[in-house]
């Protein structure tokens, strides 16, 4: 059942997709599709950005008060243990000492730990991990079907970093905590949330200063890209998450919609903050000028899109503005987000000069 390491390791949602393809059951299809939408952190959320975490990102926000519980980015210059923090879902995480045996249950947090220089302390990851290469050879303790609590206990983990909003089963998180293993649950609702999570993870693993430096760099990179695209025309852009059965795109105010906006596009969303499917009629009426293929990694091509019945009338199809992207870099809430944003900006504005990522 465990997927072998040769097959391109997919995020949770992508595994869901394979279920979608493998069954006719409506329920399973629904499950797969929504799990797919959820995996990329593009879950329903308001577009609010905690002001203290973002500063420079303020222009893109709709001015609503901060709701993110993760907005506590005031780490001490050097993390002092014992340390107690509150995670993104309100859990209290207490650490007596710097964690030496870290288990990461999401690809994004794995990337964060490695990018902050704590990769040598990560002892296990998930079936979905694909980056950096060193992370993929570690034991896998999480898959689409769940979390292997027994293996985590057997590895003597002293910190588990899990994904919130149901990415990892809350049941497993509760079980680990009841066994005395600290679990940090992270869930980024938006770009500012990703930066806040990097700082939160940094604090907890004893890399607070590194995390701060990283988010400063990322903020500058995001600002530079947003500045380069803000003066351009913002084409109506549809970011396709999946269209094998129903058409899935970003919900209103979701993470992907925010990325499209930052990249200089006018995102076509589903019209609801909780629904990730969009009827073809609605998409035709919205008339995308650019279609970004977030599902390119699963074999969808511009040719496929043009051949779909009813799609031919869309401006993007008539002008050939259908562009594949690497969805993993764009939607994964980790340190490569700025690269993803740049890729997305180039997909929307192929001829613009977008500053390279530092």
């Amino acid at each position, binding site marked *: *059942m*465990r997927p072998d390491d040769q097959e391109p390791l997919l995020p949770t949602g992508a595994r869901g997709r394979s279920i979608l393809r493998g069954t006719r059951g*409506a*329920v399973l299809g*629904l*499950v797969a599709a*929504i*799990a797919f*939408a*959820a995996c990329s952190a593009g*879950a*329903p959320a308001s577009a609010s950005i905690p002001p203290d975490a973002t500063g420079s990102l303020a222009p893109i926000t709709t001015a609503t008060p901060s709701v993110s519980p993760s907005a506590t980015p005031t780490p001490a210059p050097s993390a002092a243990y014992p340390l107690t923090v509150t995670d993104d879902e309100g859990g209290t995480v207490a650490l007596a000492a710097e964690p030496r045996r870290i288990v990461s249950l999401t690809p994004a947090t794995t990337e964060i730990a490695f990018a902050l220089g704590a990769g040598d302390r990560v002892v296990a990851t998930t079936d979905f991990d694909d980056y950096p290469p060193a992370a993929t050879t570690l034991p896998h303790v999480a*898959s689409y*079907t*769940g*979390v*292997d*609590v*027994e*293996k985590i*206990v*057997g590895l*003597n983990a002293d910190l588990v970093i899990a994904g919130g*909003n*149901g990415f990892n*089963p*809350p*049941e*497993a998180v*509760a*079980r680990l905590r*009841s*066994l005395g293993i600290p679990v940090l649950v992270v869930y980024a609702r938006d770009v500012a949330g990703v930066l806040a999570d990097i700082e939160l993870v940094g604090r907890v693993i004893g890399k607070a200063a590194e995390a701060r430096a990283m988010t400063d760099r990322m903020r500058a990179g995001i600002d530079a890209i947003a500045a380069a695209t803000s003066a351009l025309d913002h084409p109506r852009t549809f970011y396709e998450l999946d269209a094998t059965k129903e058409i899935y795109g970003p919900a209103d105010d979701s993470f992907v919609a925010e990325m499209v906006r930052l990249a200089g596009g006018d995102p076509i969303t589903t019209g609801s903050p*909780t*629904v*990730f499917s969009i009827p073809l009629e609605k998409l035709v009426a919205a008339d995308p000028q650019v279609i970004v293929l977030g599902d390119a990694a699963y074999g969808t091509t511009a040719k496929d899109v043009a051949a779909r019945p009813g799609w031919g009338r869309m401006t993007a199809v008539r002008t050939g503005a259908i562009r594949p992207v690497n969805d993993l870099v764009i939607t994964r809430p980790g340190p490569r987000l700025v690269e993803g944003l740049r890729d997305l900006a180039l997909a929307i504005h192929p001829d613009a000069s977008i500053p390279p990522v530092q």
Partner: protein
Amino acid sequence: MATRSEPVAAARVRAVRLETGRGRPALLFGGALGLLLVALVLGVGLGSVAVAPADTLAILARRLLGAPIAQTWPASTETIVLDLRLPRVLAAMTVGLGLAVAGATFQGLLRNPLADPYVLGTASGAALGAAIAVLIPIRVLVLEFGLLHGLAFAGALLSIAVVYRLSRTATLAPLTSLLLTGYAVGSLLAAGLAMAMYLSGANLRQIFAFLLGGFEGASWIRVAVALPIILGGSLAIGLRARALNGLLLGEETAAHLGVDVRRERAILIALASLVTAAAVAIAGLIGFVGLVVPHVVRLAVGPNARLVLPLSALLGASLMVGADIVARLLGEVPVGVVTAVIGAPFFLFVLRSARSGYEL
């Protein structure tokens, strides 16, 4: 006088014939107990972390029996054996036992070989309850039970209560009415479930996990709460085996045997539903065990409830532990998938290889 006692005498004859079991019950009970022991040992011994059998036995002997054995294993091994595997095996046994007994009860009660613990709408009720719990953004935890478990339990019981009430007002024969009402109410609840799933967004996976069932969340406290309900309910059903035998022969025959048909049926439905609800609350919806196990037992010993109930309990417990072991070794596949994948072909095999005339 003779006209009145004739049917009673005939009923007695049928009852005696029913209760004269085939096969060798003692041998079967011994075998079933042995199977349960094997399941227990394998369930505690196997998992994703390799633990030496000697260590497993030493840990169990030291902590459960107080044997004076020096600890030569890491503390994590002890946690794995005592806090993860043992409660999980016990939870699987309890749930398997409960579902098999409830399945046997519903099959006899409804005189329908397709009946299972979920036939009267309990599954849809529990699933809808769980889905609603997932939609409600409140996290409560009482004795390690969350809103999901509570509402699943309540949903199962509520749906059966509604089905029972509605079925009594119908003009159909009671059994037909029960089955059809159960089907109708179940369909309505399933529609509600589909709606809840549609609305659940990112939380859909939690509902999905419940629908397929599993023992990942098993802990000592959960076992301690569910075990008395399931075991107590199953024992109470077992004590009513005579009534169940009577009902199996038909209402008229049962009445001639002195069984208060309406009352006994209501009590048995209530008990089987209670057992089902508790099982579903801690393990989600696990199919096939409740349907298949009683049939397999009947193929071996005939329809006598006095034998079918206890043997189903033992076999259901063993099979559920077995299915959970497979689920664990495959990397936490939902147990419901395992029971279906193994259960259906196994059942076909048993049906095809059955020699004598099989009757419910």
